[in-house]
C-alpha cells in the first residue's frame, strides 16, 4: 500500500494548479507497463492514468470513513486497505505501520520513495533491551473535575511494560550487584543480608533475576556461581518480594548449576560437587516456599531431572546433580523418578566403577560420587517410606493400610521433609503420564507404589550391606534425640575430630576397600567398631556423621522426624546378611556390593567380602589420593550450607 501512496506522491502535480490533488502522469503508467513488459500506446496510457487517478481518489475518499469511525485523525494504511477490500479490489500485500513512513527525495532526479529500511531480525531477536509498548491495555479512573473545578492531583504516569527505575533504586541495584559479585566477602555478606530483608526492592526484582540468569556465562567460575546462588537464596528469603513468574527463571538458573556439566568441573580441583549440593538444597527451598507460584513447576523439575538421569551421554557430574536434586525434592521424588530408573542406570554406573584403568580414575571417582549420592537418597527414601507406613498404621487411619493407599496415602501421612505439600495436587496418574511424555525409560504408567520390603530387597541387591549398614547405624528412627541436644554435642566434639575427619572423608569419596581403613585406622576418635546392631552408641555415631564437616540438613531432617518409637518399621529392614563381625575391632569385613544374582546386571565382582587386611586394596586409594588429592576439597573454609551429607562416608 505504501507503494500506492508513493506513486501518488511520485506523480508530478498537474500543471493546472486549481486541481488540488495529485495525478499519476501517463509517463509513470508507461514506465510501469514497460517494467512488466507491456507496450502501451500514448492514448491507452492517458486513459489508464486518468482511471488510476480516479480509483485512487475514490479509495482514499472511502478510506476516510474508516478513519472517522475508528475515531482517529490520521489516515492509516489499514484504512486504505479496508476501503480497497470493500470495493472488491485486491488489496496490496504487506503491513502498515502505526507511524507515518517518511518520504525521501532522491537528489538526482525527481524521485521520491518511502524510507523502508531493512530490519536485521537476528539483531532484533538478540537485542537485550526489552521492547517497550507491549503493556496491557487498562482503564484508569481519575476525578478530573470536582464540582467544575479541575483536580490538580496528578494523574500518575502511564504504566508501561518496562517501568523506569528511580535514581535511588538504580544506585542500590548497582551497589548490591557490585558487592555481591565483588571481591570483598564482608561486603557480600552485608549485601546479601540486605537483599534478604529489604522491603523496597520489588521493582528491581526483574533486574536481579536477569543478573542471576547470567549463571550460564560464568559457568567457569565456581566462586561467581556460588555468589549468584546466594543471591537467589536472599531473594527467595526476602519476605517482601513476590516472585511470581520469576520463580521459573530462578529455578532454571539453579537447575543450571545442578545439572549442567559446568566448565568449572573440567578441572577436578574445583569443588563443583559442593556447588551442586548447595544448588539442590536451594532448589528444594525455592520449591517448598514458592512452588505454588508456578503451576506444574514440580513436574517440570522432575522431568528435567529425569531427562538428565536417563541420558547416558551426560557426564557423571550431571547425573550426580540429578540425583542430588531428586533427593532434595523429597523422598517421593526419589521414589518416583530415581528408584524406577535405578536398574537401568545401574549398568552404566557399574561399568564405570568396575573400570580400574588409570585413565578412568577420574571418571571412576565421579562414579563413586554418584553412587554415594544414590545411596543417600535411597536411604532416606526407605526411611521416610517406613515412617509414613508406620504413621499410616498407627495414626488411626484404619482405612489407609500403608502401601496399598498409594501416593495419596503417603502424601497425607508424610511429614517433615518428604512430600511437597501441595504441588502434587494433581492426580498421580497425571504426573506419571506427564513424565512419560518426556521420554522416560521406565514404565511410568504402570507405576505403583512398591511395597517397602520389596523396595528394600531390590535396593539391597544393588547396594548390599552398604545400605543395610547405614540403616543399622543410623539413629533408631524414633529414638533420635532432638537436634537441639545433638548439635552442641557435635559442636563440642568437632574441634577434636573435625580436621582429621574432614581429611578422611575427602580422601575417600569412593566406596572402595580403602573404606575400611577409614576413621578407625586413622586414629579418629571413634575407634571402636560399630557393628550394625549397636544402635545405642549414639554419640559416636553422631560424631562420625558430623565429621562430614556440617550436617545442617542432616540434623534438620532428623529433627523433623517424629519422636515416635517405630520399632515396627525397623523390623522391616533385615539386618546385614552376614554374621556380625565378632573378630574384634580391627578385623571385620562386610559386603559392600549387593548380591545381584537375579538381576540383569552383573554383580560387582570386586565387591565381595574381604578381610580388613587387604594389601591390594590399600593401594588404589592411595593412587587416587595421589592423583586426586583434593577431590571435593574447597579452597575456602567450609560454609554452613555445604552439606557434604551426600559425599559418601561410611561411618564404620
Amino acid at each position: 500500500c505504501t507503494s500506492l501512496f508513493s506513486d501518488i506522491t511520485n506523480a508530478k502535480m498537474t500543471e493546472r494548479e486549481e486541481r488540488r490533488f495529485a495525478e499519476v502522469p501517463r509517463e509513470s503508467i508507461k514506465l510501469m507497463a514497460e517494467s512488466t513488459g507491456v507496450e502501451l500506446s500514448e492514448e491507452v496510457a492517458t486513459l489508464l492514468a486518468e482511471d488510476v487517478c480516479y480509483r485512487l481518489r475514490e479509495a482514499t475518499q472511502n478510506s476516510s470513513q474508516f478513519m472517522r469511525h475508528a475515531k482517529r485523525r490520521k489516515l492509516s494504511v489499514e484504512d486504505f486497505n479496508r476501503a480497497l477490500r470493500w470495493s472488491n479490489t485486491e488489496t496490496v500485500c504487506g503491513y502498515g505501520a502505526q507511524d507515518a513512513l517518511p518520504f525521501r527525495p532522491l537528489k538526482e532526479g525527481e524521485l521520491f520513495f518511502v524510507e523502508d529500511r531493512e530490519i536485521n531480525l537476528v539483531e532484533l531477536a538478540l537485542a537485550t533491551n526489552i521492547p517497550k509498548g507491549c503493556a496491557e491495555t487498562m482503564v484508569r479512573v481519575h476525578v478530573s473535575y470536582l464540582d467544575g473545578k479541575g483536580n490538580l492531583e496528578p494523574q500518575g504516569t502511564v504504566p508501561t511494560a518496562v517501568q523506569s527505575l528511580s535514581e535511588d533504586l538504580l544506585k542500590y541495584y548497582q551497589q548490591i550487584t557490585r558487592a555481591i559479585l565483588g571481591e570483598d566477602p564482608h561486603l557480600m555478606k552485608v549485601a546479601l543480608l540486605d537483599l534478604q530483608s529489604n522491603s523496597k526492592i520489588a521493582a528491581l526484582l526483574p533486574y536481579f533475576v536477569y543478573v542471576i540468569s547470567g549463571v550460564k556465562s560464568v559457568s567457569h567460575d565456581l566462586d561467581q556461581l556460588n555468589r549468584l546462588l546466594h543471591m537467589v537464596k536472599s531473594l527467595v528469603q526476602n519476605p517482601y518480594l513476590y516472585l511470581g513468574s520469576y520463580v521459573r527463571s530462578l529455578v532454571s538458573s539453579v537447575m543450571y548449576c545442578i545439572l549442567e556439566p559446568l566448565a568449572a568441573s573440567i578441572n577436578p580441583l574445583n569443588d563443583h560437587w559442593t556447588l551442586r549440593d548447595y544448588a539442590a538444597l536451594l532448589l528444594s527451598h525455592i520449591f517448598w516456599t514458592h512452588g505454588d507460584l508456578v503451576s506444574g513447576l514440580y513436574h517440570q523439575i522432575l522431568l528435567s531431572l529425569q531427562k538428565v538421569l536417563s541420558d547416558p551421554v551426560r557426564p557423571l557430574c550431571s547425573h550426580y546433580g540429578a540425583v542430588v536434586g531428586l533427593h532434595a525434592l523429597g523422598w517421593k521424588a526419589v521414589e518416583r523418578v530415581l528408584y524406577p530408573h535405578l536398574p537401568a542406570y545401574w549398568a552404566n554406573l557399574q561399568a564405570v566403577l568396575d573400570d580400574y584403568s588409570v585413565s578412568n580414575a577420574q571418571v571412576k571417582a565421579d562414579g563413586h560420587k554418584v553412587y554415594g549420592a544414590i545411596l543417600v537418597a535411597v536411604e532416606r527414601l526407605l526411611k521416610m517410606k517406613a515412617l509414613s507406613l508406620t504413621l499410616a498404621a498407627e495414626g488411626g487411619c484404619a482405612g489407609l493400610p500403608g502401601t496399598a493407599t498409594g501416593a495419596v496415602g503417603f502424601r497425607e501421612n508424610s511429614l517433615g521433609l518428604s512430600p511437597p505439600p501441595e504441588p502434587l495436587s494433581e492426580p498421580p496418574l497425571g504426573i506419571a503420564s506427564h513424565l512419560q511424555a518426556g521420554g522416560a525409560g521406565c514404565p511410568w504408567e504402570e507405576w505403583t507404589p512398591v511395597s517397602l520390603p520389596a523396595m528394600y530387597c531390590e535396593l539391597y541387591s544393588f547396594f548390599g550391606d552398604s545400605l543395610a549398614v547405614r540403616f543399622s547405624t543410623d539413629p533408631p528412627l524414633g529414638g533420635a534425640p532432638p537436634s537441639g541436644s545433638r548439635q552442641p554435642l557435635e559442636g563440642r566434639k568437632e574441634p577434636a575430630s573435625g580436621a582429621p575427619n574432614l581429611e578422611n572423608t575427602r580422601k575417600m569419596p569412593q566406596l572402595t576397600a580403602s573404606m575400611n581403613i577409614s576413621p578407625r585406622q586413622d586414629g579418629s576418635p571413634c575407634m571402636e567398631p560399630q557393628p550394625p546392631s549397636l544402635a545405642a552408641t549414639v554419640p559416636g555415631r553422631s560424631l562420625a556423621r558430623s565429621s562430614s564437616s556440617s550436617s545442617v540438613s542432616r540434623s534438620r531432617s532428623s529433627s523433623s522426624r517424629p519422636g515416635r518409637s517405630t520399632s515396627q518399621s525397623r523390623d522391616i529392614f533385615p539386618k546385614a546378611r552376614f554374621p556380625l563381625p565378632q573378630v574384634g575391632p580391627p578385623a571385620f569385613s562386610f559386603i559392600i556390593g549387593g548380591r545381584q544374582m537375579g538381576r540383569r546386571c552383573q554383580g560387582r565382582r570386586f565387591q565381595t567380602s574381604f578381610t580388613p587386611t587387604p594389601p591390594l586394596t590399600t593401594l588404589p586409594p592411595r593412587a587416587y589420593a595421589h592423583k586426586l588429592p583434593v577431590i571435593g576439597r574447597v579452597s575456602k573454609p567450609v560454609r554452613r550450607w555445604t552439606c557434604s551429607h551426600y559425599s559418601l562416608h561410611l561411618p564404620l
Partner: protein
Amino acid sequence: IIRQKIPKKKKTYYAAHVMTPLLSAPGKKMAAVQDAPMELDAEKETKPEILSDGTSNLSGNTASGTLSSPPLTAGGAPKQEDQQTLIAVLQFLRRNKLTESVEILRREACLEDQEDSQTLDGSGGGKGDGDGGDANSLLSRVSIASAAAPQSTLTPIPVKSEYDQPDVSVVLSAYSQQGDPSLYQVYYSSLKNFIESVLDCHRAELSQLFYPLFVHMYLELVYNNHENKAKAFFEKFSGDQECYYQDDLRILCGLTKKEHLKGNEALLDFRTSRFVLRISRDSYQLLKRHLQERHNNQIWNIIQEHLYIDIFDGMPRSKSQIDSMSGSFAGETRREVNKAKVFYGLLKEPEIEVPLDDEDDEAENEEGKPKKKKTKKDSMGSKSKKQDPNAPQQNRIPLPELKDSDKLDKIMYMKESTKRIRLGPENLPSICFYSFLNAYQGLTAVDFTDDSSLLAGGFADSTVRVWSATPKKLRKVKSAAELNLIDKESDDVLERIMDEKTASESKNLYGHSGPVYGVSFSPDRNYLLSSSEDGTVRLWSLQTFTCLVGYKGHNYPVWDTHFSPFGYYFVSGGHDRVARLWATDHYQPLRIFAGHLADVTCTRFHPNSNYVVTGSTDRTIRLWDVLNGNCVRFFTGHKGPIHSLAFSPNGKFLASGSTDGRVLLWDIGHGLMIGELKGHTDTIYALKFSRDGEILASGSMDNTVRLWDSMKAFDDMETDDFTAATGHIHLPDNSQELLLGMYHSKSTPVTHLHFTRRNLLLAAGAYNSQ
C-alpha cells in the same frame, strides 16, 4: 542505482493491481454503453441486469418513498413506471427460477392493484419477504401484560424498502436529453447574473439553486462525455458554492468520466432523490418569470426533474435561516414530512410495590421513612398517575415483561435517584475520566451500563473488552458439569453458579474479524452488543463471556448499534445505508429503515422504545417509527457526517453532534431545530443529557468535554404554532451563553459520556501519548 530500482519494482507491482479491476470492468461497461440507446425501447430487457448489479443496495436508496405520502408531481406516471418495474422484476425472478419470490411478489402486486398507490411499497416485499410477516408474528410473541389490546401486535406492514428505481441506467438515461453542451456555461452564468441582480431578500433564497443546478449540470456534461467542457464548467463555477459543500465538490471534481458515474452510489442517490429547496412564493415567481423570459429551458428542465421546490407563502427567509437548515446531501426537509404525529412522551412506569425489605432497611430511621416514600412518589408518581398525552400507548410496541431482577433494578434505580444531585448552571457535575491506557490497538467505541458498574470497550483489533468499574470482579458461570453439582434450592444459588476461579477485573471477547465500531450494553446488564467492520452484530453473554449470536444482514461495516431501553430490541446501522431493527431472539431483522443517502453512522433508541433515530454521512438525521417503519422526522442542518445522537430523558428533544463540531438541538414534537451549540473544534463523538435533562455534555476529538445549559436552550426557543407551521426558525447565536464549562482532558479524545444515576459525569477515551 539501487534506490532507483526499488521504487521501480514497486511501481510494477502496483500497476499490476490497479489494472486488474480495469481489465475486468470493460465487459460490463461495454454492455452498459450498448444498452444505453436501447433503453428507451427495451427497458424491460435491461432491468434484470440492473437488478443484479444493484443487489447490494436492494434495500433502496431513495428518500422520497420512505416518507409516508410522497408528493407526486405527475399523478399516474410513477405508478405506471412502477408497474413496469414490477414486470421486469418478475421476469428477472422467473429467469432465475426464484419461483417462491415470484409468487410472493405477485400476491403483493395484486394487493397493490386493488389498493391505493400508497401501498406501492409492498412491491418491496418481494425482497424482504419473510421479514414483514415474520416480524409481525414474533412481535406478537413477546408476552405483554394485556394481550387483549388490539394494537398490541403490529399490523402487517412490510419492511420499508423503496423500489422506485434504483436502476442505474434508467437514472442516468435521464441525462441524455441535453442541450448544447457549450451553452451550459452561458445558461448557468445568466442565471447567476439574474440571482445576483435580484433584491437582497430574494437573493439568499434563490442562491440555494446554485448548488443543485451546478451539480446536475456538471453531471450531465460528464454523462454525455463532454469531459473538457465539464472540467471547464467545474473550474468556472465551483468557487461560487457554499463552503459546506466542499466535501461533495471534492468528490465531483475527480469524476470526469461516464464510467466513474456508474460506480458512485452517492451521486446516483443525488440523482435519484430530488434535491429539496424551500423558497417563498415571491422568490419562486421571480425565478419562474426569469426563466420563461429567457427561454432558459435547460435550467427549467433540471428544476422540474431533479429539484423539489417547496413553496411557502410569506416572507422570504434570511441567509442565516437558510444556512442553518441547508447543508445536507439532499437539500432541506419538506415541510410536510415532519408533520406526522410523534409520540415522544415516556411510557408509564410500571407499578412496583415498594418492597417491604426496603423499608426494613430504613426501619431504624423513623424520620427518613415517610420522607423517602414521599420522594419516591414524587419522582415516580407524576409519571405513573396520569398518562402523558404525548406518550404512545403502553403496548404500541410489544415490550418484554419485567422480570424480578428488572424490578429489583428499578428499585435500585429509584433509591439511587433520590440521592441524585440536582444539576444546573450553578451546580455543575463532577467529571470522572476513564482513561484507556496502552490502547495501542485503537479504541473505537465505549459504553457504560446504566448503573455504571460495567464498562465495555471496542477496539480496532477486533476485540471487545469488558471491565468492571466497581471492585466486584467479573466472573463466569460455571460449566454445565459443575452446575449439576450445585444445590439448586439454596438461597444463594445465583452466587453459587459463579466460578470464583475466573474472577478478574476485565474480560476479553474475541469473535469479530474487523474493528469493532459500536458497543452497547443491554439494560439488564446480561448482554453486550458489538458491531463491527466484518458486517456482523454480535450478542455476547456477560454471564459466560461468550458470543451467543452473530446477526448477519448488513453485509457491510456496521457502524453503530444500540439496545432498546427495555431490552430485547436493538438497532444497527451501517455502510449499506440502512438501519435495521432486530430482536435478540431473531436472526433476521424485524424492520429495515431505508432512506438515508449515505452510511448510517449512528443509531439510538428513543427512551420510550417506539422510535429509532439515525444519523448519517449524508448529513441528515431521521427518526423512524418502530411500529410501521415510517420515517417520521427528517432533520437537516448539519454540515458534516453525524457521529453522535442523544435523546433528552423526557424524550422531547434530540441532540446531534457531527464532524463540523456543532451540536444541534431538535424539538421532536414540532420537528424543528431549536438550538445550535458552537464551540467544539473537532468531531463530536459523545453526547449525553444529565439524568434530569438540565445539562447536556458533549465530548469531542478536540480533547474537551463541554457542558451546555440545555434547560435554557429549550426554554429560550418559543416553539409557537407559527414557527411550527412554517418551519422558519430564528436561532439566536447564544452558544457562549449556553456553554457552562469546558473541560480539557490530557490528550485524550472523548469517546463516550455517561451520567451516573446520581448525576456524576463519566467520560471515557483512550489516552494518546504522542
